[in-house]
């Protein structure tokens, strides 16, 4: 997400959002009601939720992390978290598309682009005319991101890109790629960040992944074959790429944490609806105590981990380092989302697993939150390293 330091006034005062944020949240809920009705269809066909993304663009939801002078709403990280929880509680495929666009691509460009670069790309990105994708992972570098091999060789006023990126969210739908490339031999200092437009010759969409969940989201390989990228598309200086990648992920993790919160909340809502229907012959609630307890534990963790996520978001909004805090938020929320979705399937029983409710989709969608933008195991090591430092 963005690193804009928003106004000095607190966004969360005594654990309550400001009235402006509450109003924003309501606007998002209206958007969800009006535009995310096809979540199940998007999952089953599957197809990219183009209409939903377009409607989001029209509501200004694709530019929450862009400064106002470049056409953004500059609402910052916390507002983005609020928004993403709502959207992901209904459709995680739409959610991740917006999360990547905002919290990885726009946020990164806002922080690392020159003014000229911003003026080149933001007009298309803030309106959603273009979607952005973040190209870090490769077949042989997932958690070990610094092992990347995709190469960019300087040739006059161009870089020539060769290699392939894997598991790129929005890959087949994006018009702009932020690509992390190898410009030098040093494992870390040899990495640079560059923008490659999808329309360039030599840039193509490779294998499309068939996945457990998030089926509406496009996840593809992006292949670079002698793709000539103008040198003025470089972000920052040569060798700054890894720093840019990791810094951006600190914010991106808040987007995924919010996705996880949305999935967890939807799961708890399903359980609540199911248990609420269980009555004795006098109409009194009589859901089993163990089921009620499980719901209570999930609901408590949902509240706790939302606060954890928001804490990291306001820290980032203040321009503070939040590596440990965002790792805590992501690892806790992602595990919760999976726990909650599994509980929903289990408690809803046959109706949970048969596709008659959203429970089985939530279970499949939840699973990715522990994997992408830094697997849970990596988050734990980040936290432990902070504690042992």
């Amino acid at each position, binding site marked *: 997400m963005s690193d804009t330091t928003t106004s000095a006034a607190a966004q969360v005062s005594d654990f309550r959002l400001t009235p402006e944020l509450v109003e924003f949240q309501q606007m998002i809920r209206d958007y969800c009601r009006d535009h995310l009705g096809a979540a199940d269809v998007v999952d089953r066909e599957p197809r990219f939720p183009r209409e939903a993304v377009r409607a989001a663009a029209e509501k200004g939801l694709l530019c929450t992390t862009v400064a106002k002078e470049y056409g953004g709403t500059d609402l910052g990280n916390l507002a983005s978290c609020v928004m993403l929880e709502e959207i992901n509680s209904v459709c995680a495929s739409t959610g991740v598309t917006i999360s990547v666009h905002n919290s990885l691509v726009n946020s990164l460009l806002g922080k690392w682009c020159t003014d000229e670069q911003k003026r080149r790309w933001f007009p298309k990105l803030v309106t959603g005319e273009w979607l952005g994708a973040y190209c870090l992972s490769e077949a042989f570098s997932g958690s070990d991101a610094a092992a990347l091999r995709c190469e960019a060789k300087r040739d006059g006023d161009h870089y020539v890109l060769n290699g392939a990126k894997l598991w790129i969210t929005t890959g087949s739908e994006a018009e702009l790629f932020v690509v992390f490339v190898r410009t030098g031999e040093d494992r870390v200092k040899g990495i640079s960040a560059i923008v490659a437009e999808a329309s360039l010759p030599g840039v193509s969409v490779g294998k499309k992944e068939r996945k457990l969940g998030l089926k509406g989201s496009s996840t593809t390989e992006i292949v670079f074959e002698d793709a000539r990228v103008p040198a003025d598309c470089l972000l920052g200086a040569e060798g700054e790429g890894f720093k840019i990648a990791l810094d951006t992920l600190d914010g991106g993790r808040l987007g995924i944490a919010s996705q996880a919160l949305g999935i967890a909340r939807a799961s708890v809502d399903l359980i609540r609806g199911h248990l609420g229907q269980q009555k004795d012959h006098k109409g009194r609630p009589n859901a089993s105590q163990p089921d009620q307890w499980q719901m209570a534990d999930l609901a408590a963790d949902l509240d706790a981990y939302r606060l954890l996520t928001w804490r990291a978001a306001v820290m980032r909004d203040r321009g503070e380092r939040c590596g440990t805090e965002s790792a805590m938020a992501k690892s806790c929320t992602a595990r919760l989302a999976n726990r909650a979705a599994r509980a929903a399937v*289990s408690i809803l029983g046959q109706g949970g697993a048969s596709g008659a409710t959203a429970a089985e989709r939530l279970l*499949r969608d939840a699973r990715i939150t522990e994997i992408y933008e830094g697997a849970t195991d990596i988050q734990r090591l980040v936290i432990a390293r902070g504690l042992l430092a």
Partner: protein
Amino acid sequence: MHNLQLTEDQEMVVDTVRKLVADTVAPNAQELDEHRTFVRPWFDELAELGVYGLSLAEDNGGAGMGFVPYVAALESIGEHSGSLARLWIGQMQVVLAMEQAGADLDELAAGAKLGVFLGAEHGFTISEGKLTGAAELVPGALEADVLVVAAHDGQDLALVQVDAAACEREPVHALGLNSAACGRVRCDGVPGAALPNAAAAIARAELVGLLGVAAASVGGATGSIQAAKKHAGERIAFGKPLLVQDAVQRKLVESGRAASAAQQLTWHAARLSDLGEAAAAVAIEARIAAVDAMVLASDEAIQIHGGFGYTVEYHVERHYRDAAVFDVLDGGSGKLRDRLAAAQFS
């Protein structure tokens, strides 16, 4: 499979199944699952091996081998295909319920017809020979020839056989067991034949179902662990195979421990039953532990696979989905826990 102490004949059956799994099931299970293809050919191959009569008394044309080789063989199927395992389980439930009821079961034991058992948890009722009720998620339902149903007849449970074709059936978009022709079943006054000896027959079908899902889930856990171990041995991160990281090893150890404990419970329940002792409670314990082990092992296997694990090509996401479906079948693990409680405290 140390210390299960199979007889030579039993060992032979298990080995034959294992070979079928290795040659035919393992290489194709993922693709067929992805396309939701029903694996009738595999079901027929198992029929040719005669496994549906495995636990049937010799007097009734079966092999009379009890449940120990059944769980051993199912474990090896479960390693690669939860769908096929579940079809076998359903067939066995029907065959053994029919045997207990003294009904004609030759075509079912031979696998010429596909049978599906619907347990009491679905709440079917029978009145004046007409079966009424609905079940939301029934593996095998879409392709079944025969349904054998535990139905309430107003007083006790009755065992009812119906022609599956007479029921409304429609596909469900289930989370897992995609190759098992899962469907919704609806009977609105379908004529059914009530079979004798219902209580014992239903209890036997339940037992074989519990043992079967337990064994298949132990297999699914093992399959997940093996896939993850293979991947972790090959995948290099931070300059070393993933498998040298103690955290990755620990995930596999914990998954293995869960599978091992569930396996012991499963074997124990099968042996108890073969000795003629009450085995239902241990079988429930085995089933819950085994499904939990499969959920854990497949979940950790996905995590060890990282991004690869989220794609459909590495088997582990399939085990994860199948495990979640196993969890909700037969009334679901919550209700099974309630049954354990009822047995102890009421």
